[in-house]
């Protein structure tokens, strides 16, 4: 039997395996709801096969998997499922780029990237699991990456 604790949608996008508690941050990064009129449903702390997770469903809208890689920073295990006529027709695992630019602030208050300079924040991904990123400018590693999301 299909694992379907969520109400089925006919067409749209399901973001699955979001780090529990991070669904709202994921939506924030995707600029939802500002950028969409679609019906969006959020499930938090759902029991999945591999422990707790959050799920987001966006109806009648197919998000571009490339754009979705941005959420890898806060939900590195997320999968993107494109739903057409109730079926999953495309599945994409988010992938973290080597460098993360302009997505999360440096947690070091005296880092030059937090000053009034014409640069975006910039981090190198030094480890994927557990996720570790290092500021290109001050060389420090933020502990709570999600907290810095711009």
């Amino acid at each position, binding site marked *: 039997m299909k694992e379907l604790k969520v109400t089925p949608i006919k067409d749209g996008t399901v973001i699955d395996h979001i780090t529990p508690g991070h669904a709202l941050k994921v939506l924030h990064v995707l600029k939802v709801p500002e950028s969409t009129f679609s019906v969006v449903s959020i499930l938090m702390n759902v029991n999945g096969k591999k422990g707790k997770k959050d799920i987001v469903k966006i109806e009648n809208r197919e998000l571009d998997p490339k754009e979705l890689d941005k959420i890898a920073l806060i939900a590195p295990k997320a999968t993107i499922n494109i739903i057409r006529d109730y079926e999953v027709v495309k599945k994409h695992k988010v992938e973290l780029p080597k460098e993360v630019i302009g997505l999360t602030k440096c947690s070091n208050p*005296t880092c030059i990237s937090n000053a009034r300079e*014409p*640069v975006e924040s910039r981090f190198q991904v030094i480890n994927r699991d557990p996720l570790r990123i290092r500021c290109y400018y001050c060389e*420090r590693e933020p502990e709570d990456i999600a907290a810095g999301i711009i």
Partner: protein
Amino acid sequence: MPMNFKHRDIISIKDFSKEEIEYILEYAKHMVPYAKAEKHTTLLNQQILATLFFEPSTRTRLSFESAMHRLGGSVIGFADPSGTSLKKGESLADTIRMADSYSDAIVIRHPQEGAARLAAEFSEVPILNGGDGAGQHPTQCLLDLFTILTEKKKIKGNNVVLLGDLKYGRTVHSLAYALSLFKANLTFVSPETLKMPKEVINECKEFGVEPVSTSNLEKAIKEADVLYATRIQKERFPDAEEYNRVVGSYKVDNALLQQAKQDLIVMHPLPRIVEIHSEVDSTAHAVYFKQAFNGLPVRMALLSLILGGKKI
């Protein structure tokens, strides 16, 4: 491997391989007679170094300026940002664009971490980091390595004790990294509240070095070949009493050095306040003034390599 330093930025010691560091240190040895004005050169004749000090410094600025003059070049810049357009709110990026068009290389000291890295993005000419807040100070690290190398003939295998404020001390983090790269043995001595950060210890371990952390200086000193003392700032302590207790227990004096090896060298990035008793100055252990001098040949080597491109 051919070494090419021409036009390279000097931002962080981590940007350099072990071989590159060795090359710089060897070249610095060659610079010593020029630094002492026993030999003369006009290698950087007609070249201009800009020294932008957004935060005060004595040794770093003077030795960079002296290095440039000794190489036949000239220097422009400021020693303190008051009176510059920075006070009017100009961005660092704009200040750098301006200095870039007036010079062939730029030394920057700035109170914020990452400032030198940012400067390099806006500059065509090479940037030399003279210290960015609590961040990097690569030329200090190189002169520290140079001092150990010239005093001990090698870096590998020495028992190096890093003493003092290991939590906030800017020089000790990159030094611990670099010493691990060269496979020195490390002991970290600090008060409980000023211990070496976990990330730095992990970096050492990545090079196969297992640093020992302790608060007991008397024990650590016995096997040491190098004692690197740093300043403990009063501001780090909740009250004067606690500060005095800690500073008292980490004071380097002749009584302590009696328990050390004959050929132990004592280093300090200076300025020292009370960490090293002045009675130590006249002993063979004291190399901190020589260490300060070593800033000159090391900075001369860097300037020649990135600006000259050819050797003298």
